[in-house]
């Protein structure tokens, strides 16, 4: 993992910082937008599990000499499609997902065990390594990000309908299983990108923290999406900046900002809710 040993106060004179800002910017926007729907659908745990499955894919790819990103992408995509194809009405799906998640991490460990020279990269996979991003990776992330957002845009309307009112959506002709499978494939793409920045263990920091915070503050669809993307971007860039000046790990800084942003927003509308409850109490009195 690259640590910052630069002493200059102008972080943008370093190529690796410029690269990090570009990569983190692309990924933050994609993560914030895709994460908004993950939070809306109550599937954040599934997103978390996908990233762990991706860890097994990345280490497995290393074992057979492939780039970790493609292993990550392949495994998360396959897992996302399988999860989507299984019925959504598995009542104890948290348990099933948790078991698959542990199994995937176990396999990741096994692959590491047989490919020991890869172990140095394990930390980067688990906790991210945004400071080592090169131009080729930025281009890859940009293409993947564009595919992710375009696909999401294509299914967004029925996705929202199916997320909010599955029974009615089914009656109106929305193919529920196709929509949920396509969405989990989109999540798999976003998770793979996100893991390049903050690592598989911390994808929550960009994919769940900012959208959850945004949904506490605003209840409109477009305002929520915009705020989720903006918050993710601000947290990613601010995290990079703090990391530059303090020499703390970037992912740590982003994780702290994500949590701080969420808990700060949690406090805001509580006041508003209490007031509206008072209003209702007064009306019925």
């Amino acid at each position, binding site marked *: 993992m690259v640590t910052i040993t630069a002493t200059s106060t102008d972080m943008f004179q370093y190529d690796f910082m410029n690269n990090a800002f570009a990569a983190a910017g692309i990924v933050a926007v994609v993560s914030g937008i895709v994460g908004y729907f993950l939070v809306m659908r*109550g599937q954040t745990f599934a997103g978390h599990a996908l990233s762990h499955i991706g860890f097994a894919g990345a280490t497995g790819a290393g074992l057979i000499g492939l780039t970790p990103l493609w292993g990550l992408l392949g495994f998360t995509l396959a897992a996302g499609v399988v999860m989507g194809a299984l019925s959504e009405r598995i009542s104890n799906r948290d348990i099933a997902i948790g078991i698959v998640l542990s199994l995937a991490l176990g396999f990741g460990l096994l692959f590491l065990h047989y490919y020991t020279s890869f172990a140095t990269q394990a930390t980067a996979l688990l906790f991210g390594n945004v400071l080592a991003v090169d131009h080729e990776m930025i281009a890859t992330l940009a293409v993947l990000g564009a595919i992710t957002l375009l696909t999401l845009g294509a299914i967004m309307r029925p996705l929202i309908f199916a997320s909010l009112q599955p*029974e*009615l*959506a089914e*009656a109106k002709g929305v193919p529920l299983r196709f929509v949920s499978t396509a969405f989990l494939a989109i999540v798999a793409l976003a998770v793979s990108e996100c893991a390049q920045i903050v690592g598989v263990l911390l994808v929550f920091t960009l994919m769940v923290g900012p959208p959850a915070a945004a949904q506490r503050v605003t209840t*409109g669809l477009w305002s929520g999406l915009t705020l989720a993307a903006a918050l993710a971007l601000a947290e990613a860039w601010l995290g990079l900046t703090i990391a530059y000046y303090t020499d703390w790990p970037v992912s740590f800084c982003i994780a702290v900002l994500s949590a701080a942003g969420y808990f700060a927003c949690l406090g805001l509308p509580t006041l508003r809710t209490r007031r509206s409850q008072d209003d209702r109490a007064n009306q019925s009195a």
Partner: protein
Amino acid sequence: MNVVELDRATIGIAGHSVLSDVSFAIRAGEFIGVLGPNGAGKTTLMRAILGLLPPSSGMLHVFGRAPQRGDRTIGYLPQVRTVLPDLRVRGLDFIASSLDGERWGLPSLAAADRRMIEATLDSVGARDLASRPLSDMSGGERQRLLLAQALIGSPKLLLLDEPLISLDARHQEVAIDVVRKVCRDRGITVLFSAHELNQLLGTLDRVLYLGSGQAVLGTVEEVVTAPVLSRLFGTDISVVRADDHIFVMSRGRDVERVEHVHEHGHDHGHEH
């Protein structure tokens, strides 16, 4: 004209027939109370009318033809099963999601659609729900929001699946009043399923009782009688009328309040 017509129709889920060899016809503009125990087929009937469950035999016509999935002339209020506990979406966007929600692409909300949603919310007395997130709404408020949604798009047939569940007595009356007023004004045919007959007595035109795979449609005087219901449920039913209330009793107990008596009656019917 018959809005819904079944002729010797058998409708089931996964090979198990819920309604078998059922025939009845609902005329345009009628308010039909759909009654019967849990599992008698109220939801199944509505899903069949929506075109989600084709009959395995016999005929089912809606507006004179086989039901088509996604029919815009049918408004539907599903029995709420999916409740996301922390849904921070405001009422306006919740309803907007259902407008052309089956189309691909990005969601959009035209000014005319927004006005239509607000006007419909107004007509059920729930204008303030447009700006409030669902996570802050009570069960009654959510139900009213869903009712408004079912009325959007000028439906000719309204399927309301247990709309009174999770409402207190006062809100139940309000909900029935709203449906009656809006549907009488617009000439909408209504299938309104409920657990209790009495609240609907002043509103319904005819009652559709489901039980033991069978269905009986008729006026309250025709259907809610000891012989008809005893035959339908396959057990001894007595009907007591008092003060504009009708009590349907099985072995001295009110079947509409004691759910397991229904189940007992149902089983009993199979034994014979």
